[in-house]
């Protein structure tokens, strides 16, 4: 923009593009040297999404630092928008244009072709033709070298010597440049991830020999709880409420005879440790760590030797009876009795295990995790919307106990087509794919695709309680019917499995069909959606499993920063649609508390005093706060203020900003706040008192007098502000409005986007912003009280004419559009009612009414 001098040429910033064409290879640079002609000043910016480039360039900055003085000057220069926009740019553009015109005319006169563009400091000249004709360019180039640089650097010598010296110098120069490159480049690349992490083979890890008599940890202690077995002091010093996790280096353990204790590491465990290492939890400093993850892979108990693995654990450098150590195990137990927790003695170590039963699970200490299904990564099952499917119930497990299979087949016989019981295929020609096939009699089905054809999928206990099929079922959006007594479902500490699954006791297996039939269709669809969401969030990758496990432990250690039930369980669609009203408790505040009136004033002292006197007549007023927004003038002396029956406080502000009206001043002691302008003198005492009474019944809403409406303008395709005389309201003016003081806190500290600054800059629409804020956070409409339509006193109308009124409306419409785009939605709610006193305009003796003088329009 700075160097575009051609007025007709449009300018569009690269950064305003929705997305960069190739973000990894598009780098946006800008520096002052061109636009401000300050080429000596090495100040510029680089915008890039390429992390490697950013770190590389960042490390160069060390050698090109700017002095504080220059930085200050630059800041001053760039901050002075008025000067740049009104003085510098026009002048610069004019000069550039003049220079451009001059050069291009000269070139044209000489007949040299060039590119004429309306921007930039250079002209692209095509000298090829000239160069062919004469040796003009050679001469030009040469003259530069010889005349300027030549004499200073290279002494006049004989040509032979000269060439010799030049060669020598160039070699030295090249060498220096190369060295410099070496010095600087590796630095920058080193700090990026790829260089940093050693690339080695798993086979090359150090070997550790475990003597046969090395100590074995004790068996797991079933009474362990966080406050008895976990050393929380290690996690104490962390301002971010995030635990630090250390991973032991990978070793290969062998026994006395050199026989390995286990497979060094499985693919999944490697992924798991990589995920932890890439997360915010990771630390490489063993002294700062709160949780230790051994790199000894115990995911599958069948692949390891129990005693020797335990010995390997015991010799870890910080083992200390397993305190704060976390082991991940998905397949516990072994034949024949298949224990439900890892059999490796592990003392106090926490166990993240798949397949816990109520007997082995230490509530609040262990974490129940899913058994990862490798099919999650292999098979891409696109999400299938909820709704009825071809089969009602399907069983796709192989290797079921015959007793269960009989039960299932009995179901199939009884209910026919809607139940499908699948088994291993026995007659497939190619054996390799048999895990991806299931058969029913002679019919062959693709697994896991077939699960998408069913509403409910049986997940029966096998030899182990935890089954990888649970993950496949969830991925297919099929509702799991878990038939495994005493099984602790994955992440059951935080996930609400009632919303995504049906748990049926094993002895009720024959009734399973009728149990499922009794579930209403709507609930089934909800469960299908929830099942898929659980898979996406917590099952689909090893990384998701690892991070959820760490988050659960983190939440136990920092409970005050824990993630809520809704965040764990609500699918994104529900999270976006729902509103959690901050004032959800139905509570009518006691009338005795009263309200605090806040009057924002600048210098209209006379009118202010009248407002104060009027408002002080309202019975429930408990305090009056005057916000003096004029920095150039002192508020009147104490003696001049009207004498009223409640405390009156004057707050002076540092800057004349509209948002000062909505600041949560410590002086506000009541929950109810009446915001009132310093010229609102027309409201009667009855009207204000009634407004307060209405607020008590609706403490979570804005309660105001004149109502306004937003409308969708179909012609302009945007929102429009509508003033009085409509049958509906969606906003109230805050020239006089009651609201909860908590909204002051929200307005000042939690207003989305730049709305607050925008309002202060434009000195308008602070009331619309407040209406948006309250409606957005509570999801409720405003309450308009009494018939009042405007705040203007009849005699004031002469001052602002029609045109002023119209610009006002345009500005207010702009505000609505601006705010709606910042909020990303239109939070305002339209209603058709207003609140009046019970007997308002009823045929009833006036003097018996509580609020006889309710005011006019």
């Amino acid at each position, binding site marked *: 923009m700075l160097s575009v001098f051609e007025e007709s040429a449009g300018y569009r910033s690269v950064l305003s593009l929705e997305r960069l064409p190739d973000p990894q290879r598009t780098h946006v640079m800008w520096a002052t040297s061109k636009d401000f002609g300050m080429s000596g000043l090495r100040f510029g910016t680089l915008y890039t999404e390429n992390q490697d480039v950013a770190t590389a360039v960042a490390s160069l900055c060390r050698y090109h630092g700017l002095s504080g003085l220059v930085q200050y000057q630059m800041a001053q220069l760039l901050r002075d928008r008025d000067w740049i926009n009104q003085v510098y740019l026009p002048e610069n553009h004019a000069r550039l244009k003049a220079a451009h015109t001059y050069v291009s005319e000269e070139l044209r006169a000489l007949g040299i072709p060039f590119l004429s563009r309306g921007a930039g400091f250079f002209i692209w000249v095509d000298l090829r033709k000239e160069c062919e004709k004469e040796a003009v360019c050679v001469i030009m180039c040469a003259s530069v070298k010889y005349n300027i640089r030549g004499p200073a650097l290279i002494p006049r010598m004989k040509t032979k010597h000269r060439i010799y010296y030049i060669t020598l110098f160039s070699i030295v120069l090249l060498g220096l440049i190369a060295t410099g490159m070496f010095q600087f480049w590796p630095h920058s690349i080193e700090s990026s991830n790829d260089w940093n992490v050693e690339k080695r083979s798993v086979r090359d890890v150090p070997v550790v020999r475990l003597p046969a008599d090395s100590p074995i940890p004790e068996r797991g202690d079933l009474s362990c709880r966080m406050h008895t077995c976990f050393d929380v002091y290690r996690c104490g010093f962390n301002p971010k409420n995030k635990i630090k996790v250390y991973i032991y280096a990978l070793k290969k353990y062998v026994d006395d005879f050199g026989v390995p204790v286990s497979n060094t590491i499985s*693919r999944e465990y490697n992924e798991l440790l990589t995920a932890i290492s890439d997360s915010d939890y990771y630390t490489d400093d063993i002294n700062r760590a709160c949780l230790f993850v051994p790199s000894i892979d115990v995911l599958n108990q069948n692949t390891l030797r129990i005693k020797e693995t335990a010995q390997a654990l015991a010799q870890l450098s910080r083992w200390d009876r397993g305190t704060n150590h976390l082991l991940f195990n998905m397949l516990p137990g072994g034949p024949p009795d298949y224990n439900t927790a890892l059999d490796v003695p592990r003392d106090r170590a926490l166990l993240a295990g798949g397949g816990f039963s109520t007997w082995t699970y230490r509530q609040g200490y262990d974490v129940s995790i899913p058994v990862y299904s490798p099919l999650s990564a292999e098979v891409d099952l696109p999400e299938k919307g909820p709704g009825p499917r071809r089969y009602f119930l399907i069983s796709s497990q192989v290797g079921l106990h015959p007793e269960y299979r009989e039960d299932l087949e009995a179901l199939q016989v009884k209910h026919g087509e809607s139940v499908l019981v699948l088994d291993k295929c026995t007659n497939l020609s190619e054996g390799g794919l048999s895990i991806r096939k299931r058969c029913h009699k002679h019919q062959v089905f693709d697994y896991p695709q077939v699960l998408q054809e069913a509403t409910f999928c049986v997940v029966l206990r096998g030899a182990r309680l935890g089954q990888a099929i649970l993950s496949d079922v969830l991925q297919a959006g099929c509702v799991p019917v878990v038939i495994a007594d005493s099984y602790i479902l994955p992440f059951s500490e935080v996930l609400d499995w*009632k919303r995504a699954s049906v748990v049926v006791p094993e002895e009720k297996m024959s009734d399973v069909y009728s149990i499922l039939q009794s579930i209403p269709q709507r609930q089934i669809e909800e469960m299908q959606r929830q099942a898929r969401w659980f898979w996406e969030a917590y099952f689909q990758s090893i990384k998701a499993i690892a991070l959820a496990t760490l988050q659960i432990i983190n939440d136990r250690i920092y409970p005050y920063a824990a993630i809520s039930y809704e965040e764990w369980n609500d699918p994104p669609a529900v999270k976006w649609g729902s509103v959690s009203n901050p004032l*959800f408790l*139905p509570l*009518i505040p006691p009338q005795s508390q009263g309200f605090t009136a806040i009057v924002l004033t600048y210098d209209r002292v006379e009118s202010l005093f009248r407002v104060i006197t009027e408002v002080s007549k309202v019975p429930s007023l408990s305090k009056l706060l005057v916000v003096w927004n004029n920095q150039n003038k002192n508020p009147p002396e104490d003696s001049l203020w009207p004498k009223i029956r409640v405390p009156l406080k004057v707050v002076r502000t540092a800057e004349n900003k509209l948002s000062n009206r909505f600041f949560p001043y410590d002086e506000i002691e009541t929950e109810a706040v009446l915001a009132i302008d310093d010229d609102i003198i027309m409201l009667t005492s009855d009207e204000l008192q009634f407004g307060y009474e209405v607020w008590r019944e609706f403490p979570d809403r804005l309660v105001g007098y004149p109502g306004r409406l937003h409308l969708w303008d179909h012609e302009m395709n945007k929102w429009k502000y509508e003033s009085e005389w409509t049958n509906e*309201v969606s906003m109230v003016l805050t020239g006089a409005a009651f609201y909860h003081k*908590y909204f002051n806190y929200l307005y000042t500290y939690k207003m989305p986007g730049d709305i607050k600054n925008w309002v202060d800059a434009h000195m308008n629409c602070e009331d619309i912003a407040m209406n948006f804020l309250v409606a957005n956070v509570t999801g409720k409409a405003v309450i308009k009280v009494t018939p009042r339509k405007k705040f203007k006193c009849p005699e004031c109308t002469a001052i602002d004419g029609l045109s002023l009124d119209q610009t006002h409306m345009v500005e207010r419409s702009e505000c609505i559009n601006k705010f709606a785009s910042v909020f990303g939605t239109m939070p305002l709610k339209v209603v058709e*009612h207003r609140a009046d006193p*019970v007997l308002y305009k009823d045929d009833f003796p006036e003097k018996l009414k509580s609020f006889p003088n309710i005011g006019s329009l």
Partner: protein
Amino acid sequence: MQSWRRRKSLWLALSASWLLLVLLGGFSLLRLALPPRPRPGAPQGWPRWLDAELLQSFSQAGELPEDAASPQAPHGGSCNWGACFDTSKCRGDGLKVFVYPASGPISETHHRILASIEGSRFHTFSPAGACLLLLLSLDAQTGECSSMPLQWNRGRNHLVLRLHPAPCPKTFQLGQAMVAEASPTVDSFRPGFDVALPFLPEAHPLRGGAPGQLQQHSPQPGIALLALEEERGGWRTADTGSSACPWDARCEQDPGPGQTQRGETLPNATFCLISGHRPEAASRFLQALQAGCIPVLLSPRWELPFSEVIDWTKAAIVADERLPLQVLAALQEMSPARVLALRQQTQFLWDAYFSSVEKVIHTTLEVIQDRIFGTSAHPSLLWNSPPGALLALSTFSTSPQDFPFYHLQQGSRPEGRFSALIWVGPPGQPPLKLIQAVAGSQHCAQILVLWSNERPLPSSWPETAMPLTVIDGHRKVSDRFFPYSTIRTDAILSLDARSSLSTSEVDFAFVVWQSFPERMVGFLTSSHFWDEAHGGWGYTAERTNEFSMVLTTAAFYHRYYHTLFTHSLPKALRTLADEAPTCVDVLMNFLVAAVTKLPPIKVPYGKQRQEAAPLASGGPGPRPKPQAPAPNCVNQIAAAFGHMPLLSSRLRLDPVLFKDPVSVQRKKYRSLEKP
């Protein structure tokens, strides 16, 4: 000469450069040769193995144990729900509870608790038909503990209810019985099987109970941040600024400005620190809850009450006592939004589940019923947001959108249609005009006529475009609030055959109801008042400046209240309504107010100005205005509820341009203003 000097300097420069080159280059080469040491700044992550792709999976695909284990026998000694509870007896109408009669003389409290359970919808008199057998073990102070009951059957399907944790000498083995006791220790508690109760003080009210103490949503400015429980009872407030670890006696030199409140006073602070060691501290927990003081539990060794269903992270903070400074800092820095939410949740939970013995017992039974129901149990949202699971029946629906309370949380809206339910009592004239008026409303979906008098059903009904259903009632007034399956919309417009409404009035009232789907929106009102002279509640239908009830002879409300009226009210109250028909209005208003804790809403009614006697103008009916509407009816119902839930409102919702001096053409509901 000069040339030599120049040459010399040149050589010098050249050799210097070479030296520099060798030095710098040498270092670089050295660095390349030696493996780099980890630098302290950037963390050294888990290595990216070159052969990561070649690693084997932890479970070989298809590696499934061939010898699948047979169904496991339950472990001896311990129990869980699947193993030790037989749900086969509980099919049908959910949980049926039989209570063992007490052996020998019983205390007054015991008697009243028995009566309360017998009056509830769970109770049955036959031990054979019951699915849960309840053994009350209440009177610890008398020293008499129940002996082994007859139907014991190793404790299967039994619940031993111990309200007060005075240990009863174990006269018999509990076996497979579930135990509901106050503050069980974490080690003995069997999750999903036992029920954790709150630690109730001796004088806990049986019914109704004191409301929460919270007067305002946000903490009062200037109140103490922390209150500490004292071992001798009472609370001591502490300013966190004064001492670094206010609850640790060792580091506390000066009690400072903290004040000690003796006795059973409630703490006045934002947070209440409660020790987790002594189970007696659990009674402090309840106190804090009532006071709206956010409980901060330090490493509790006991299970929180009803932890199976209540999400305590929304109302309390469980912290580690070993990190006092961190906890303190976290409390000080807690965002106002979180404090606000926690405070409100304490009040909601107190009021919904803990404020009376009756509520605690009903909650216990509801928890067990939810286990039996499985998929049709209360969703977590119903337990953890107002009005609570005792008032949001899962038998009505398990989808929160079907209830009037959760539209905001669900991002849903109430339906745009209503069903008119017209009750035709004696003398039994078909309400032709009324049907016309209601059918004229654009929001009307169907009209139901509840024929409830001796005369035969008329054969012909007026021609309307609306579907019209006639239900033959049982001539009981409580029939009006029966959850008829033919009602298909969320909103019900309840009408009496003698009501008279205009289409415009119906339309406007319905639009208002859509904004307040959980409340009753009515046209005619009445109020209750405290009658000093008689020392009881009074009732008036006079026009006053405030009201607390709307007449159900013309009112909009949510269909759910029919279910609640029929299935949750004690039978005695419904009988009362049948016997004194004027009470049915009062009863419905009590019910809705007890659920919403809010007053009903009044909308303008045209006829009121015209004539003094509204709606029901002649003959005896459900709301004959001139007759005194039995003031003792209000008292009876209030006694049954245990408290007075009704609240007064001083406002009426009118159309925005109601009676404004502007052209009628502008107004949407212009006929509302016709004289």
